[in-house]
């Protein structure tokens, strides 16, 4: 405890910018020396892709090597650079503080993306994992709107996702590719990247419209009954898609153009987080909480509960649709089986693991479940014992999830941390 406390105190003067600089240093070290020198001398076959987790589980003899790699490439540079550079990053952060918050946040995000891009770019497998994780973040945050903020138990998200995925796939296939089923491209494929946002929005809108099938009964139906309505909705969407041979039915639909590179997905993820954050911290969004905690009181306090419920569903479904669209264009293949019970279990796990009523929690949940899922891959079957066990422990010790009822405070996150604050904040 003592060491931890000391440790924490030591680094309490490092602003976000400092951490970025530290990570940047680590990534640069990996980029330039990772393959040729460090991993070579440590006897590793290659740069360990997910901090060495895969290789450690597969070949225990590599454990020290992989750990040493992590230490040399990540831990030491990050800590050292972050700490040592604080004399320059703190004034830097102070300078940024003078700018409007949004500008400062955008600058930070751009820095963050640049580092992420560099890190992921070392290996395409990393890129794929990062892409799917970002899509999961959108999905998880959007579920949290309904299951966390609004407190329903909705099981329909795979259905919403499927709607978004199929609608956006059909659009891109019709518009930008020469497809067997839909004929030649209607628009020059070069336009694809520019119109892709519209395609995603269309996918989201389709999901939002579909969500009315769940939202409208929700005026009358409460809690548990809504859970089965939404479950029925999911099965209906799946069955409908299976029966539509024009879009491939059970065979699935492939050949989507590769319109979702990392920057695009990153942009949409940040947009999603920003919009949902705005919404849930505004009074209109807080109305969701009032409906959850006491609907009668909400009504008496002038809250339009029907509109609120409808908004929550359509809003959550919209982002699930966007996530579905991105998902389809990352994998460039979808089939109805992807949007079924398994997906539902995965989504629920991410949301409840991360934390209800919290965007930060959802991000944590999505990232941890995705990374765990990948990192434990070498364990094969045992992975499916370890992940559930972790989840059960989290549920027992933190019933609302790891980080619940917490919102992002951008200002506090980005501010400069001067030495004199040390005494004030423990």
């Amino acid at each position, binding site marked *: 405890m003592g060491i931890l406390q000391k440790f924490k105190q030591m680094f309490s003067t490092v602003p976000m910018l400092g951490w970025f600089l530290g990570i940047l240093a680590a990534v640069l070290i990996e980029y330039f020396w990772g393959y040729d020198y460090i991993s070579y001398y440590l006897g590793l076959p290659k740069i360990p892709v997910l901090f060495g987790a895969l290789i450690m589980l597969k070949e225990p003899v590599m454990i020290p090597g992989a750990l*040493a790699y992590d230490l040399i490439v990540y831990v030491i540079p990050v800590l050292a650079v972050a700490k040592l550079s604080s004399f320059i990053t703190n004034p830097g952060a102070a300078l940024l503080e003078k700018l409007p918050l949004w500008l400062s946040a955008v600058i930070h995000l751009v820095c963050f993306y640049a580092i992420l891009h560099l890190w992921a770019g070392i*290996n395409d497998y990393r890129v*794929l*994992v990062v892409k799917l994780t970002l899509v999961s973040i959108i999905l998880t945050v959007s579920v949290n709107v309904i299951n966390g903020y609004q407190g329903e138990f909705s099981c329909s998200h795979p259905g919403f996702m499927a709607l978004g995925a199929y609608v956006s796939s059909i659009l891109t296939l019709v518009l930008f590719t020469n497809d067997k089923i839909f004929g030649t491209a209607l628009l020059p494929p070069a336009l694809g990247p520019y119109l892709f946002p519209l395609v995603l929005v269309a996918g989201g809108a389709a999901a939002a419209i579909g969500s009315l099938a769940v939202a409208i009964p929700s005026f009358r139906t409460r809690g548990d009954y809504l859970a089965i309505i939404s479950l029925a909705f999911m099965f209906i969407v799946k069955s409908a898609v299976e029966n539509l041979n024009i879009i491939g039915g059970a*065979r699935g639909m492939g050949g989507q153009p590769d319109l979702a590179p990392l920057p695009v997905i990153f942009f949409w993820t940040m947009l999603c987080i920003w919009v949902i954050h705005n919404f849930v911290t505004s009074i209109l969004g807080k109305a969701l909480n009032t409906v959850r905690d006491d609907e009668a009181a909400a009504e008496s306090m002038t809250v339009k509960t029907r509109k609120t419920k409808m908004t929550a569903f359509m809003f959550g479904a919209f982002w699930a649709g966007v996530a579905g669209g991105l998902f389809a264009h990352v*994998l460039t293949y979808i089939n109805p089986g992807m949007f079924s019970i398994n997906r539902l279990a995965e989504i629920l796990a991410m949301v409840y693991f991360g934390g209800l009523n919290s965007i930060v929690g959802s991000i944590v949940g999505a990232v941890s479940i995705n990374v765990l899922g*990948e990192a434990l891959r070498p364990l*094969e*079957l045992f992975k499916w014992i370890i992940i559930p066990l972790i989840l059960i422990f989290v549920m027992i010790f933190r019933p609302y999830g790891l980080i619940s009822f917490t919102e992002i405070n951008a200002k506090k996150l980005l501010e400069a941390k001067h030495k004199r604050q040390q005494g004030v904040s423990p």
Partner: protein
Amino acid sequence: MRKIAVLTMLAFCTAMMFSSLAFSARKTIIKIGINAPLTGDIPKVGEGSKYAAQMWLEDIEKAGGLEVGGKKYEVELVIEDNESKAESAVKANTKMITQDDVLAIVGPQSSKQAVPAGEVANKYKTVMISPWSTNPSTTLDRPYVFRGCFLDPFQGPVVANFITEEFGFTKAAVLYDVASDYPKGLAEVFKQAWEDKHGPGSVVAYESFTTKDTDFSSQLTKIVKSGAEVLFTPQYYNEVPLIVSQAKNLGWTGPIVGSDSWGSAETVELCGEDCYGLFFSSHYAAAGAKGATKAFIDRYEKTYGYIPDDVAALTWDALRLAQQAIQDAGKLTGKIEKDREAVRDALAQIKDFDGITGKMTFTEEGDPIKCAVIVRINHQGEYEFYGSSCP
């Protein structure tokens, strides 16, 4: 602070020391990726692929490595679980190609994973051989993707022809899983082929269910009522016994015919006597096999305790194809991109490859031209060769 520094240094040194044990200079190792469904809906398929691959590796190791261009190389298998999910198969392929630097990939088995995974393999210009995927789009327009089996559009007519010639029936019923890609595709092809032969409406009942269903009584009642003479059901080994016994209990007396998905030893084990005397089309017939095929079957049975499924045999063939292609490539440069391309070219050139599931030559698309076998389940519960049909 000092304590931490000292600790860090110590940890670092120990790590260096330990890892020197594992240390070996980067030498060229031939890595073959196996993308198999070890968990998920069809773990048995994954197990078969894994076992076949391990047997293959054993052979190579016994020979002291794989000889390419006069030099022996160590061979390593990278077995990845795709959880029977498409996105997992894509991840597994990406990982094997970009992280593990595999030279070629064998798998995934089911089309719903092979189609998206093939896209990845093709993008990274890495040879992928799917042993079991019969969906045409797996290899379509993908020069780097091959398969080890025939396609649905070939198998459907084979079955239709066989039934017509063997029994002389004109009215058929089909029962298939609408949510699963393989049965659905094959059911459609069969229906088409049957109606081409016997005129529209000759498929008198075309019934479906959904994956994981176990009760087919309403569909079978419909089929019995429709007056069909034969029932075609391209289902997997876990559904066939249920379909057969329920059909019998509902008064079905005609023959039931299946497809290559029946070709698991478990079909008959689970089904018992109900299945004796039924026919299905397949890649190979285990009972009465000769030569290399028999050797493979015997060895597999000895090691793992059961007769290999067709998946195992096809995986074996796919691995041997990959091996052949690597050897044909002449020499390995150690530059993985170049070697992959050489392997691809060599694989496309292979003519009349003598596999245990038949002779194979690849078409432009990377599909083998090979014969289908009609198998009869005899009264000892063995899969007996009954006839064959070649394109």
